[in-house]
């Protein structure tokens, strides 16, 4: 096999200068703008997490005062959820890949795509401003009436930041929906679409139907805080539980904004590295839509102890169990795809195995929380913290890293050092489990979340958790180094280093600005690994 040449002309060197990046309408360049800004927020959120874990290595509150600690976990949550997890896979990988996967030159509305990034940056600036001038301490959930009439921290600028950023998410979703409907190449029917595209279609539905509700809720919260009116204030006749209903109407589905795109990545990688067509393609495709719809029916499982009616709690508990079904469908289909496949343990696939293990634990522990009896015992304990980190960090970030590694050669045209990537995957997996598994036990034993001190008998598990966080930090940091290194020194990747199917691997790496020299015509079924064999290069 000859070493492929690095393409002379591509989207990275098509035009030069900072203006050509900041005013670009190329979906691939906008994806890279997101990659940079999202990484900055990830680092910031990680820093807050580090301080939290440092404080919790000892039972006493010796590093951070209670107020400061409250701000740390609040800003950790806000930054990680609204500014890292929600845009991570859709705005970076989705943006980069969807047009290429469907054989289009760009998204349907390239200018709106750029606008989305600017809205994200403006919203992020408001939130950064709030952090710099002293932070906010309400918890990322902004529960009323504390957030509206008691907290003396920067609730308003943070809220405005989140309100603004929401529209970035909405516009990205809108762009994807229209693109997937209207821009598919000839022959690319719905059931020939990569499952990554299906997953993003479902994600977009949630972004469009859910995000506006949290936006208007934050607006009501801001009005209440600014003018002292009583929509959510029980002292003035309002109902704080209404705020929770409206907040979780978005914020439960928001978990699926984070996890569905990761599931899309996993579907691609499982098929590629097993060298088999995905088992039960249409089940996996429709389970994405099912998750998007059912995800809207379960939100009050966050409110079982908030005073909702027992009857409603039973309904929401039942529905929460039901939403596990489509996720299980996906997991079983991935397992069936790998069954008797010739699995290639390349570094992205190691991340996939990490995802499968952690997401499964996260999903199954979710069932404990969905059942009314156990939830009362473990509500607001570290069990919940561990559960959602298994989904959102173990699941979503593992999927994100798997995707970044898998598509890095397509994005940059170069390979990263495989051994380091495997080491990173291993460090993340080990570090993650060491950080969060003890928290299940802590929570079960009754350690509440959101306190900066705890009884001494919890210290051993907390020290384990903090030690794990250190390993996790190393696991997250080394890709930053070797991926940057690979930009200059990495081996030239060629069009298709993984021997994968799909239009994105038929064009050059990095692609041309217009993605393809001529509009592709699709005649193959998806994931046709049997026929295509594994020609790498």
């Amino acid at each position, binding site marked *: 096999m000859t070493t492929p040449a690095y393409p002379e002309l591509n989207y990275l060197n098509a035009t030069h200068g900072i203006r050509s990046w900041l005013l670009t309408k190329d979906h691939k360049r906008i994806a890279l703008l997101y990659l940079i800004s999202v990484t900055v927020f990830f680092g910031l959120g990680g820093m807050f997490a580090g301080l939290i874990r440092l404080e919790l290595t000892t039972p006493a509150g010796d590093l951070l005062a209670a107020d400061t600690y409250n701000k740390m976990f609040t800003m950790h949550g806000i930054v990680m959820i609204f500014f890292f997890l929600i845009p991570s896979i859709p705005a970076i990988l989705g943006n980069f890949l969807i047009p290429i996967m469907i054989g289009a030159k760009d998204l349907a509305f390239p200018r709106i795509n750029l606008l989305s990034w600017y809205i994200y940056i403006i919203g992020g600036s408001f939130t950064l401003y709030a952090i710099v001038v002293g932070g906010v301490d309400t918890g990322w959930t902004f529960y009323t009436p504390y957030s509206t009439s008691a907290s003396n921290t920067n609730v308003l600028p943070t809220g405005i930041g989140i309100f603004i950023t929401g529209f970035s998410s909405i516009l990205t979703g809108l762009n994807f929906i229209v693109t997937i409907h209207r821009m598919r190449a000839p022959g690319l029917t719905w059931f020939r679409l990569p499952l990554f595209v299906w997953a993003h279609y479902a994600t977009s539905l949630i972004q469009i139907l859910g995000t506006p509700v949290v936006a208007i809720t934050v607006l009501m919260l801001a009005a209440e805080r600014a003018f002292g009116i009583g929509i959510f204030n*029980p002292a003035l006749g309002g109902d704080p539980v209404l705020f929770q*209903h*409206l907040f979780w*109407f978005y914020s439960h589905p928001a978990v699926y904004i984070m996890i569905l795109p990761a599931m899309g990545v996993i579907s691609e990688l499982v098929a590629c590295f097993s060298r088999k067509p995905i088992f039960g393609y249409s089940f996996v495709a429709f389970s994405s839509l099912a998750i998007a719809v059912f995800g809207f029916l379960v939100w*009050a499982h966050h409110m079982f102890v908030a005073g909702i*009616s027992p*009857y*409603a709690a039973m*309904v929401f508990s039942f529905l929460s169990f039901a939403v596990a079904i489509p996720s299980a469908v996906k997991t079983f289909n991935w397992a069936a795809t790998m069954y008797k496949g010739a699995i290639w343990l390349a570094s992205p696939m190691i991340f996939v195995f990490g995802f499968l293990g952690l997401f499964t634990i996260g999903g199954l522990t979710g069932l404990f929380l969905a059942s009314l009896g156990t939830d009362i015992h473990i509500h607001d304990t570290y069990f919940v913290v561990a559960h959602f980190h298994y989904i959102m960090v173990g699941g979503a970030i593992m999927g994100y890293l798997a995707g970044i590694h898998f598509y890095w050669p397509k994005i940059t045209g170069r390979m990263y050092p495989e051994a380091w990537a495997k080491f990173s995957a291993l460090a993340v997996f080990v570090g993650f489990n060491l950080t969060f598994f003890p928290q299940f036990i802590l929570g079960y034993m009754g350690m509440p979340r959101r306190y900066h001190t705890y009884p001494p008998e919890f210290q051993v598990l907390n020290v384990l958790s903090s030690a794990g966080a250190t390993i996790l930090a190393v696991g997250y940091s080394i890709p930053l180094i070797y991926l940057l290194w690979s930009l200059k020194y990495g081996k030239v990747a060629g069009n298709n280093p993984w021997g994968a199917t799909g239009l994105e691997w038929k064009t050059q790496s990095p692609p041309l600005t217009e993605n393809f020299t001529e509009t592709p015509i699709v005649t193959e079924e998806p994931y046709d690994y049997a026929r295509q064999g594994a020609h790498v290069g």
Partner: protein
Amino acid sequence: MSGHVSPKSMYFTIFGALMFFTALTVGVAFVDLGHLNFPVALAIAITKATLVILFFMHVIHSSRLTKLIVATGFFFLLILFGLTMTDYLTRGIQPNGQKGSMITQH
């Protein structure tokens, strides 16, 4: 959706109907229908909105996809209302079948 040009008379007819329903909803508001005043006002508003959507916004001549999007928007709105009110309207009802007051007033 694109090419279809509706006759002017259609627009006038719809406008007339909307005016009629506006007058009706104001008129009916001053008639005692007991608990029915609110449902009737809502029904009239839904009728008016439907007329605007179908004829002024040409959904009646639009693709199935457009119809689906309109339906999806309102469907999820109903999920928001319906499941939230599932909580509020069952406050006080115990799972064992005992019934308290339907409406919790603070």
